[in-house]
């Protein structure tokens, strides 16, 4: 089993996407994805979040292996230190630098079932690890059957656990929570940073859970407009927001996807199945065809999701380039030697 993915992001200040400090990375074919929320009050936390999510997806990290984790973290910290540019920092930034950057972390991966014979219906093991308040909602049939690591909206804390880019001698506090569950074809894994997660849990608690399938089909522009409206109504906190939807499918197109805080753009709708694909379903006696129908529909659905995923990725790559250009322009504008 693999993932088909959709990613939605919006910066705390939509007019300043360069200040977005969440990160998200997916290896859909490998069945692994990670989300991180860079702590806004620290420096270079967006880079730290980006670096960690990419590395987790590449390395399939197991935090239960303490020695291996410590070694992995040390290398990531070295990479962060090598990557950041501290040459032009102002006094107020220099004062912050000794604390380094911080981010929360959440990642999920699919693993083969260990049972023999394999269970029916086919399933895979879902593993999730979390540090801090980025959340996973495991949705089946439109209902969140697990929420992890936070179960109730009042549990969100202003000061969640976060992993630091410098060793401040407090790594013993990095207590990752772990979830292991069965995952079925068609399940939806919703990974989100805290603002979206708190809103989603509130909706679940009020008996009116988010219609996740609608979000799957939503354009990024429509999603951003909804988030802006929720913020204005006081229903969602002003914060960088990331929503990663992972549909568990039999097979998806190749992919590694990362999140980009993008300028508004229309996303493509899922491609409908062709008439030829639908034709064999017509005229089948309902009693004998039922199992095949289910399988065929699932296959069509998966292909539609995979098609959408490919379109999304093309879009994201394009938007990534746009973001890079915007960043270069911004940096050029504010280069210290250009200031009067």
């Amino acid at each position, binding site marked *: 089993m693999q993932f088909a993915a959709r990613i939605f992001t919006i910066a*705390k*200040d939509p*007019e*300043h996407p*360069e*200040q977005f*400090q969440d990160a998200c990375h997916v290896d859909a074919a490998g069945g692994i994805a990670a989300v991180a929320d860079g702590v*806004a*009050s620290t*420096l*270079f936390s*967006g880079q730290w979040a980006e670096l960690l999510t990419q590395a987790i997806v590449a390395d399939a990290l197991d935090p239960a292996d303490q020695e291996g984790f410590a070694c992995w973290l040390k290398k990531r910290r070295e990479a962060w230190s090598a990557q950041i540019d501290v040459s032009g920092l*102002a*006094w*107020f*930034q220099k*004062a*912050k630098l000794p604390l380094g950057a911080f981010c929360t972390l959440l990642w999920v991966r699919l693993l083969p079932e260990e049972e023999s014979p394999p269970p029916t219906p086919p399933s895979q093991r879902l593993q999730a690890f979390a540090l801090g308040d980025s959340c996973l909602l495991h949705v089946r049939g439109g209902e969140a059957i697990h929420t992890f690591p936070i179960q109730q909206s009042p549990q969100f804390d*202003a*000061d969640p656990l976060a992993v630091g880019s410098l060793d401040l001698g407090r790594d013993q506090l990095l207590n990752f929570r772990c979830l292991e569950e069965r995952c079925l074809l068609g399940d939806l894994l919703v990974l989100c940073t805290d603002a979206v997660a708190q809103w989603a849990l509130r909706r679940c608690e009020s008996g009116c859970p988010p219609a996740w399938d609608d979000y799957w089909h939503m354009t990024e522009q429509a999603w951003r407009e909804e988030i802006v409206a929720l913020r204005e*109504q*006081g*229903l969602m*906190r*002003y914060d960088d927001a990331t929503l990663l939807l992972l549909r568990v499918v039999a097979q998806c197109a190749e992919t590694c996807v990362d999140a980009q805080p993008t300028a508004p753009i229309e996303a493509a709708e899922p491609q409908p199945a062709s008439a030829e694909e639908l034709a064999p379903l017509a005229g089948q006696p309902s009693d004998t065809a039922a199992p095949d129908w289910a399988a065929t529909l699932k296959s069509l659905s998966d292909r539609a999701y995979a098609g959408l995923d490919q379109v999304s990725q093309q879009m994201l790559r394009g938007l990534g380039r746009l973001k890079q250009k915007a960043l270069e322009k*911004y940096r050029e504008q*504010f280069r210290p030697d250009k200031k009067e």
Partner: protein
Amino acid sequence: MSRATYSQEISRQHKACFLFLLDQSFSMEEPLGNSSRRKCDELVSAINGWLQNMAIRASGDEGIKDWMDVGVFGYRTDPSAQPIIESALQGPLAGRTLVSITEIGASPVRIDPRNQLIPDEETGEMLEVPCEVPVWVDPKAEGGTPMCHMLYRAYEILSEWIARHPRSFPPIVVHITDGESQDGDPIPYADAVKSLATEDGNVLLLNCHLSMTAADPFMFPAGEEGLPDELARVLFRMSSVLPEPFLRHAMVEGFQLQPNARGMAFNADMVCLIQFLNMGTQVAPGLR
């Protein structure tokens, strides 16, 4: 669904506003309780420290986020007893009424070299470490205490700000004095300031009294009983009842406040003053 009051998060769209009103009368020359330094010296240290911390806290990779406006006003009288009500910010920001925290961070008047005492992690001994401290406000102590004039000016400044930011978290006014008003009864003026409101709630007026004596301080009292004198009772009546989010935040910080506690400190020393500033200004969501 109606929104709770004092819940608007601070953002570029919904900026916060902090206005400090500093007593610069002659009595601020006296030493602060539990300190060898003058009240005016300790006061500007606390205010400069607050500005420094807020600039650091609001900073990110791209500089300081423009999420709040800050005003620092001083009040005193001239030799002919005329009130002087003016911005205490100096250097490039002199004369400005409310200034964005982005500009504050970019424009200290100077950066003073200081020595900071920090504990040696291995030996526990206190070590003197050189550091740099930005300065925006310098001490002043002369003339009388035209408190009513100051509060009236605060009313004008905040009326304008609220008209431009009707949906923001309401402004927080921190008034620090060591004595009583010399230009009339300040309570009606304080009430006028407190009557100003954004859609998110009324302006919060917090009053802190600095003491020369090392007496027990009163922090956030809920009633007039037990307050030592009439000055304390006047400041109590001038101070806002603290809203529920403040009480919640205070509890997290280890303060057990009674319902109807007011934003007031009396007989404050330097430790109390800094606690008061931090507690009073961290209630705004998004600043914690």
